[in-house]
């Protein structure tokens, strides 16, 4: 009997104790909300839109790796479903309005950071240590800063200036992809494909604007060089260069599938896989679909060249995890961001995602051959300009204007009007 009483007594005490602990955690949470810090942290609230596919596998691998390395840090992962970044931004916007930021979330770095600019805090001392800073290349480093201060950690890099091809179709057409050296050569190669094969020369979707914006920015980079490209992103673009890049897109549009406006990127990409199309210009997530197909192998059935004319540049599309001021879990978030800035975390993530680590000292032997080749290109690149379509180069208001200009371009391919709208997007 007495032992029973003791049991109950103890359990009551332990209930009280745990209630006190919960209260203390709450208090600690409050104090950390007011910037006090110290005491046990809240669990990390990570919001992302990688709710399916390779993105989901990648974030799962990253979190698993992190939890093995830091078993003491708790995670409250909250994927925002819908798999669209737009939804995620709305959720973040609403939470920031309510002054209730999460620990971190998936966002494009670069100019996109301006959207929630005031809400971020510096992680220059805690995360961007000398060791980290030395091992990031200048391009990604620049994108991780907001007004000259590090506020985010780039996690992966997808390259935009790729030209993927189906080897068999190009062989049949008598085109050697390695010999292409300018955007004009791509158009000629498309003409050869059209003449010598039944395949569609250039797979592209035009129901949404994004693929065309990507293609145009790649053409601008290839024709106007990094300087011309950078001048445009800074609002000092040369309208002639913009026009020339648009004209290249118009020339290529002759070689699109005839139902380009009704298909999606996946369908366009499948055309390349099935030998119904020769080329596709895409970010290297296109290769993710190829690697899922056992009968479509890198080097044998498909290949990739840097978009002709843009050699030496690695056109960046990155995801990153920024640090919010007023953070619910300051220490834990910084620990997590440091893990994201480590080669270990980046390799775990990118192995699943199909992209490459932004650090130049990563051991990429665990990545696939294509990723290793891309990584070699990346570390050897002269410049790493930021993508316009993928939110790095221009702020969201300007990007909306650019997308608007292209939504009109897709209707009538009016080069003059679009060129003016693009240059005017910065006003």
């Amino acid at each position: 009997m007495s032992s029973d009483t003791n049991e109950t007594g103890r359990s009551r005490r332990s209930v009280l104790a745990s209630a006190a602990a919960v209260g203390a955690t709450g208090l600690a949470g409050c104090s950390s909300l007011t910037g006090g810090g110290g005491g046990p942290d809240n669990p990390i609230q990570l919001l992302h839109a990688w709710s399916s596919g390779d993105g989901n596998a990648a974030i799962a691998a990253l979190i698993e790796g992190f939890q093995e390395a830091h078993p003491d840090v708790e995670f409250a992962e909250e994927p925002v479903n819908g798999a669209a970044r737009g939804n995620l931004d709305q959720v973040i916007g609403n939470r920031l309005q309510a002054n209730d930021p999460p620990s971190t979330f998936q966002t494009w770095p670069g100019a996109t950071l301006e959207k929630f600019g005031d809400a971020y805090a510096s992680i220059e001392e805690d995360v961007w240590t000398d060791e980290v800073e030395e091992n990031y290349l200048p391009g990604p480093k620049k994108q991780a800063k907001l007004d000259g201060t590090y506020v985010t950690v780039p996690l992966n890099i997808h390259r935009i200036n790729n030209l993927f091809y189906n080897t068999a179709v190009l062989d049949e057409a008598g085109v050697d992809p390695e010999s292409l050296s300018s955007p004009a050569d791509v158009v000629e190669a498309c003409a050869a494909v059209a003449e010598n094969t039944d395949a569609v020369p250039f797979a592209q979707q035009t129901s949404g604007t994004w693929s065309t914006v990507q293609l145009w920015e790649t053409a601008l980079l290839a024709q106007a060089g990094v300087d011309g490209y950078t001048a445009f992103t800074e609002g000092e673009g040369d309208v002639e260069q913009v026009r020339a890049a648009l004209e290249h897109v118009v020339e290529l549009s002759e070689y699109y599938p005839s139902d380009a406006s009704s298909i999606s990127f996946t369908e366009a990409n499948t055309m390349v896989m099935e030998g119904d199309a020769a080329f596709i210009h895409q970010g290297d997530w296109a290769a993710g679909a190829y690697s899922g197909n056992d009968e479509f192998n890198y080097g044998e059935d498909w290949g990739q060249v840097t978009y002709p004319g843009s050699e030496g540049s690695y056109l960046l599309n990155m995801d990153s995890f920024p640090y919010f001021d007023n953070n619910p879990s300051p220490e834990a978030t910084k620990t997590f961001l440091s893990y994201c800035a480590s080669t270990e975390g980046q390799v775990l993530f990118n192995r699943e995602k199909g992209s490459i680590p932004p650090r130049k000292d990563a051991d990429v032997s665990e990545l696939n051959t294509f990723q290793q080749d891309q990584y070699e290109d990346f570390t050897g690149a002269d410049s790493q300009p930021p993508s316009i379509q993928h939110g790095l180069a221009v702020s969201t208001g300007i990007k909306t204007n650019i997308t608007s200009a292209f939504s009109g371009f897709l209707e009538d391919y009016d080069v003059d009007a679009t060129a003016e709208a693009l240059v005017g997007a910065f006003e």
Partner: protein
Amino acid sequence: MRDPIATLRNRWSDSDARTDGGSATESERSLLSRDSVRSAPFWLPPFLLVGLFVYGAVVWNFLLSLTDFSGIGEPDYTDLDVENYLVAFADPIDGLLSTVGMGGEVNGATPAWSDLTVEPVWNSLGNTIALMVGFSAVCLALGLLLAILVDRGIRFENTFRTIYLLPMSLSFVVTAKFWLYMYNPNTGLINVALGVVGIGPVQIVQNPDLKLAAVAFALIWQFSGYAMIVYLAALRGIPSSHFEAARVDGASTVKMYWRVIIPQLRTATVSALVVITVFALKAFDFLFSMYGGYQPGPSADILATRMVREAYANQNWAYGSTIAVILFVMALCIVAPYVYSQYRRGDL
């Protein structure tokens, strides 16, 4: 519930009664025993909730549209002005002309809260009105035709009715993807059908001349079944003696419907019209799914896509609210005459 005006009148007469010297306890008792007061537990909570969350939100949205609110932070309600409306309706004469396809270029303005030029709403306003008018007119006409056909006592009547109504049960996302396929120049059924009559594959989805019509066509497909059901119900409500009388007087079928039956469908038309035009205002989901975002291109851009773009892509909350108010006023313009006519007929 009792007529609010009657309630009000009672209250006045009550207070009159008190000045006449009626005792306070009596009037208190009569206040408590009043129907409207006694039923308050039932109607008051929803009344307050709707008032707060619907009409309160409408008023709040209007207030927001008068501020300069953009980005994150708190709106500043101390400095209210109509600048956003001036930006939205910049260049009124040219703007109005441009919505009917005339008039020159309308330049945007740079309001105080923005570093970038903000375009007026003329283009999307024109598209919205065109979509609304075209879609609802055809939808009603088609619905009426179907209703008359189904009402003629055909075989498998119920089956047809279900088939016509079925598209309405689908979400906009499904119908948008479906019509993206239907409009495919190579494999889509529309182009296959056109091919049969010798019209060669037509680009529809990104064709500036056909885009909006294509959207309207898909919406007609989805909602004409609804118009049919409303008309069918109204047709069933017309006594068969009317049909018989017209027949006896020697009216042909066409004449009978035209002169006798259709004029009696006025109420049904108005109520179907209200619902259908409101669907047209909300075609956002359809465009969003069809064009993979809120940038359907200038020929199909409607106020709803423009509003979401301003609010959520650019975080121009105040300007987004301004467009929302414009949409609200448009919806009000459609609903108000209906409500007024109902009121006049004593149906309200």
